[in-house]
Structures are given as C-alpha cells and as structure tokens.
C-alpha cells in the first residue's frame, strides 16, 4: 500500500511538471494570442483590450496558479478561439481519438501476439528471414505515407470508406464512422505491430534458450506444456509493459494520422490550437495526453504485479 501511495504521488508530480512545462512553453513560444485572434485588424488599443479580456496582462505565475486551481475544481477555462468552454470543445474529440486508439490497440494485439509467437517458432531459415524483413519494413514506412496510400487505395479506388467524410460517432452513420476510424487505426498500427512482433519474438526466443526450459524439456516434460506454463508466462511481463507503452504512443501517433484522414480528434485540435495560440485548449489537451501516458505506465505495473508477485516487493519503480 505504501508503494501505491508513492506511485500515485509520483504520477501527480509528473503531471504537475507537465502542466507547468506546457504553461511555460507559451511564455517561450513566439506569437501572441491576442495578436493571433485579431490578425491584421490589430491596432495597439485593440490588442491591449484583448489581452486584458483574456487575462494575459496578469503575471505568469498568477495565471498558472489560477489555471491549476480551476483544473482541480473541474474548470478548464474558456477557449480563446471558439469562446466556448474547453471541456465542451474537447470532450467529443477525446471520444473520437480514444475510439481510434482502442481499435488500433485491438488490431495490434490481435495480429502481433500470434504473429510474434509464430515468428519465434520459425526464427531460422527462410521464414525467419521473411519475418525479420517484414518487421523491418513495417517499421520503415512512415504512418502518414501509409495513410495517404490507404486513403487513396481503400478510399478512392476501392470505395471502402469516404476519405474526408467522417460522420461523427453519434450520428445515424456511426458504423461508417467506425469504419473510417478502422482504416486510420490500421495505419497507426502497422509500425507498432512490427515492433511488438519483434519484441515478442526476441523475448520468447530468449526465454526458450534459458537453461531451465532446456532442462525441463530434456527431462522429458511435455514441450507444449513447458511452452505454455513457463515460456509464455514469463514473456508476459515484458509484453504487457511494451503494450502499455504502445497504448501511450498510439495517442501521440494519432496527431499525424488524424490530419491525413481528416478525423476530428484531439491530435488535430492540438495542432490547430497550438497554431491559434489557444492556450486553454492546448493546456488541457497536453495534461490529458500526459495523463494518458502516465496512466498506461501505471496500468502496466499493476497488471505485472498481478502476473508476477515478485514485482510487488520491489516497491518503487
């Protein structure tokens, strides 16, 4: 329990650092929100007025602490650009991105776990060559390159989905929306499938080369039994850790893919809000994304502790 408290404390510290960094980023980045809002209509008087209206004339730390206080009371502020509450702006986007991330995750797990185990079994000879080649190739293709090829091939040529026409998850065409997300999710998944297979293959091979496995088999134990009881079980901890990290990375990877597929998720909103200098929105998104990363890490540790009780004794990290 003590370790759980420590872990929670560490999470909060990380999040605080992230939120402060995000706030500090805007002090450093060029471009003034008031100026961006007013564009070429800006006159010194109107700029002054706008800065006051947005509260930008207050000192940096005052603004940060106010924001932090608001965050803990559930008030994320009001978007500079859209003039609506940040939460009402980002809630539907989070839903879309989360949905895409989950589809992507399912695809990764569904393909890479069997493929990884298979690749470990056939790591020599031609099939080994083939799997290594495919893995390296999968990791070599940039997701947005796959994205444009997929929107072209599957969207325009095969007409399996309509690029650019994302109907929304709550509309009558929710199934179409999910299909749209599926293709984007595949593009995010490809390099990560390759990485997962690679990791799984080397873990399983490493495990099978351990002396206890060899001993067990040489003693006449059932090979399949040894494999399932020991090899797979012992490969589980690194796999869970790796997949958790993947889950965290998917959300980051969605930024580019959302642009290619025209999906209104948090990645696209983040990029646009950064260029609009819409700080309340960026601030909220950065903290949420960071929370996601921290959450994934914590979840991995918790699951691993269940799998392997020895990890519980370790305490800290």
């Amino acid at each position, binding site marked *: 329990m003590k370790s759980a408290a420590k872990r929670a404390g560490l999470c909060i510290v990380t999040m605080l650092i992230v939120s402060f960094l995000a706030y500090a980023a805007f002090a450093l980045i*060029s*471009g*003034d929100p008031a100026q*961006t*809002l*007013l*564009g*070429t209509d*800006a*006159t010194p*008087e*109107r700029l002054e007025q706008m800065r006051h209206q947005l509260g930008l004339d207050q000192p940096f730390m005052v603004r940060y602490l106010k924001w932090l206080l608001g965050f803990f009371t559930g008030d994320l502020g009001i*978007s500079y*650009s*859209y*003039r*609506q509450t940040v939460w009402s*702006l980002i809630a*539907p*986007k989070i839903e879309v991105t989360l949905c895409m991330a989950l589809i992507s995750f399912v*695809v990764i797990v*569904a*393909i890479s*776990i*069997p493929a990884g*185990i*298979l690749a*470990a*079994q056939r*790591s020599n000879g031609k099939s080994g060559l083939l799997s290594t080649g495919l893995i390296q190739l999968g990791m070599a293709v940039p997701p947005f390159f796959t994205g444009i090829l997929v*929107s072209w091939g599957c*969207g*325009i040529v095969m*007409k*399996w*989905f*309509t*690029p*650019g*026409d994302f109907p*929304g998850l709550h509309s009558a*065409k929710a*199934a*179409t929306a999910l*299909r749209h997300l599926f293709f984007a999710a595949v593009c995010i998944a490809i390099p990560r499938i390759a990485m997962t297979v690679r990791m799984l293959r080397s873990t399983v091979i490493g495990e*099978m*080369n351990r002396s206890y496995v060899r001993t067990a088999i040489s003693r006449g134990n059932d*090979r*399949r039994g040894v*494999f399932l009881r020991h090899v797979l079980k012992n490969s589980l901890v690194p796999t869970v850790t790796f997949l958790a990290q993947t889950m965290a990375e998917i959300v980051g990877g969605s930024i580019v893919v959302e*642009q*290619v597929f*025209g999906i*209104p998720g948090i990645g*696209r*909103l983040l990029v*646009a809000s950064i*260029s*609009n200098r*819409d700080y309340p929105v960026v601030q909220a998104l950065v903290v949420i994304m960071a929370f996601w990363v921290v959450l994934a890490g914590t979840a991995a540790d918790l699951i691993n502790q269940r799998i392997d009780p020895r990890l519980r004794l370790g305490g800290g990290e």
Partner: protein
Amino acid sequence: MKRHTIFGRGALRALAAIGLAGALLLSGCGGAAQQGQADSGSGKTERQEANELTVGIAQDLDESLDPHYSVAAGTREIMFNVFEGLLKPTPDGQLAPAIAAEAPTVSEDGLTYTFKVRKGVKFHNGQEVTADDVVWSIERCWKPADADAPLVAGLAAVQEVEKVDDETVKITLSAPNNEFLACMTLAILPMDYADQATQPVGTGPYKFVSRVAQDNAVFERFEDYWGEPASIGKVTFKIMEKAESLVLGLQSGALDVVMHLSSTQTSQLSQDEFNIEQDTMKLVQALYLNNAEAPLNDVRVRQALCYAVDKQGVIDLAFDGYGSPLGSSMYPSFSKYFDESLVDYYPHDVAKAKELLKEAGYPDGFDLEITVPSNYQPHVDAATVIAEQLKEAGINATLKKVEWATWLDEVYSGRKFQATVIGLESKDMTARALLERFQSEKSGNFINYSNSEYDELYAQAIASGDDAEQTAIYKQMLQNLTENAANVYIQDLADLVAVRKGLTGLTFYPLYVLDISKLAWEQ
C-alpha cells in the same frame, strides 16, 4: 539448436487458428465497410434528393462568430449568409438595400443619411427588426464598450446616430465622406442578445444551426427571410485544413463545392463530375519589403528587385498560368482604380537589376531573407519561385517559413523582417482599405513605407467629397507606390472553385464571400 521442434504440430496449428481468426475478424470489418459504402456511395444523389449541400472549407470557424468581432476572412466568407446590414453588397460591386427599405436619402451637404427600416424583416430568433436594433448595432461598432476606436474604421466619420421614429434612423457625419455607405453593410443584430459569439442570430437567408470545432458548421434555410428565399434547405461546411483532404473529399463524393483551389488540385478532379469556375481572390500578392531595413531602404535596391522578379514566370510556374499580374496595391476587379500601365512598369530585366544593384553599391548582390507564413501554400509557392529568380540577379534569397502566429508577431506587429510574401485584401470594397496602411504613421504599415507625398495625397483623398477627384488621387497614390518600388507586386491570385455537376447558381462577388443562397440543385 532445434527451437522450432519444441512446439508441437498441434500447438502450431492452434496458433495459426488464432491468427486466422484475427484475420477473419479484420476481413469481416473490411466486408462491412464495403457493404456500408453502397449507401454512402450514392450520397451525392442522396444529398441532391434531400436538397442538401456539403461545402469543403480549409479554414475553421475558429473564432467569435459575432460579426462585429470576427476578423478571419474565412469566417466572414461564410457568415455572409447569416448577417445583413442596412445595405448589402451585390455581385457587381454595388450596394443594395437590405434591412433598409430603400437607398438612404442624403442631405444636400452630404452630412445626414436617413434610412427607412424595411418592414417585416425578422431575425432568426423570430423577433422583428426595429429601428432600435439598427441604432444599437451601429453604435456597437461605432463606440464599442470595450475599445476606444470604432470597430469599423470608416465609422470614425460618424457624429451621431439617432432613431427618428420606429422605422427611421438618421446618421450624421462630421464631414462628407464618399465611402461611408460601404460601412453600412455592418451586420444588424438583435439588441442585447448575448450569445452572438457562439450562437449567432442575424437576418440573412440562412440561419446558424451548430458548429463543431474542426469538424463542421451547419446552416439551415431561414424560412421567414424577407427577400428571395434560398433554394437549398441545409448546408454543411466540412472543415479540412489540408488541401489534399479537400481534393479527396470531392473525389470520394463527400463534398459538393470547394472554393480557393489551386490548379494542381483542380487538375486532379474529373471533368465529368465537376465544373471548375474561375474568379480572382481579390488579393494583392506581393513580395512586401521592409522599406526601413538596409539594403532595402535604398530605392535602387528595391527597383532592382522589381526588375529581377518575373511575375509572369511566378504565375506560370507556381500557378499554371492562372492569376492576374499586378503593378501596385490594387487588383483588376477594382476597375475604377486599376491602372493597367503600372503592371509592366518594371519589366523582367536581369541586366537592369544588376546595374541598379551595382549603382547602389551591391555589385555582388546581397543576402535576402523572405519570411512566409507556412499555412498559406500559394505564398510559399510564390516565394519559392521568387527566391530562384532572384539568384539570376545575384541576390541570395532564402526562405524562412514561420507559423501564422509567428508571422503576425514578428513581421506584422514587430516589423522584424526583410521581405515577406503575403496577400492583402480590401475588407469593405473600398480602395481606401488597400491604401491607408502605407501612411508613414499608420499602425498597419508593416513595410515601414515613409513617403511624405503619399501621406499628403491620402489626406487629400479622404477630405475630398468629389468621387472623380478622389479616384484620381487614389490613382496617383498607386503610381507613387510603384515608382518608389514600395513592394515587388506579383499578382491577384486566381480563385478556382470546384462545383459538382448539377449544382447551379455559383455567384462571384468583388468580396471574399460565398453566397450559398443562390446555389441550387438542378431538378
């Protein structure tokens, strides 16, 4: 080592089965996708039958929707369908009465304008427009509660706005002003309605329904519109920042109309599915020069740049020949002020450019940094070609791509730049809007142009009550900009619009607007 034998045949088969199940699951998804396409594939006719329209736009409506406070051209372009002023611009550049019942009566001294408010005009919330709303709206722009200067610069000439009776509004000016009427296109809003920024209410042919950030904005036909009702019942604007997404959207049938395409993009569209209409962007695209920065503070250097740049070359290379070359801060659709002879004032002449540079003391050329906002592809493309052309004259030009926010901060307000490629527009159909910024002390004079003759001319033009005289002075000012090579003028960009076959009524205005009320599906 015989690793692969550890695994029994059976286990391998089991694994293969898992893999196969996964594959089936996926192909199941794919199959469903194929099936689903049947209904969305016929979406084009579906929309046509439902009398609906989807327009693709690159610019999100990411600001206040209150017409008095929104500044982005992209927002005004669309909200044009929602708001109206006492007067309304017409496609041929005139002003027609809208909320005003008729053209105003002007007193003989040109100081008093009397407007009759049209009877029976309704706001989208059902309220009827009254003289109080008109006075309130004009005063809101004239003397805003939160700023010292009027929101619309032209309203500075106003002395008094008063309600005479329930259907008459009288506006008094401090001095006669030819361009005052153009300001009367400012939107009339219901008095004291508080949610304009997010749920705008106007009197136009379309009413605002909803907006989802970065996704769409939906408008519906306003059934109680006072004028000729619009044809299409529901219009959705789909927001796609990337031009290639817009092209994909058109090709896949998701979009019916996209404005502001480049020739590269329209050439990807099938001639059987789309009509490509051509207009101009009503922008002055130029290599704007910081006139205060060495070596550009030397008029000979600026002139050398003008000779070194081949504007037709820029248009041919970056814009497939679409675009109208310019010679000063005025575009051809403003035919009243446009001076054809200025276009070729500096013909493409590298030898002359080199000569001028030599005279100015730069026989080996110099380094020039061109800052461009990265989100405006046409400006980036033009700058790319210009940089290449300048090499011939020995000028080593490099591009610096910056974000729009950075551009505003560093170039526009900070004036820390050498040269930049951008397009400037006239927001209210007046020549003044294009010319006033180049006065020495003007806050929008980001190029630091400082010419006492120009300042004097501007003062004369504003004071002049006579239209012909004013036009002549404006032309002199344009000449002044060209002669002093204030900027290297390039072109007014072509505005290519892709319209799905079967859709009629696309109308161009001398303003940056899309009038959806005139669009209709063929029966």
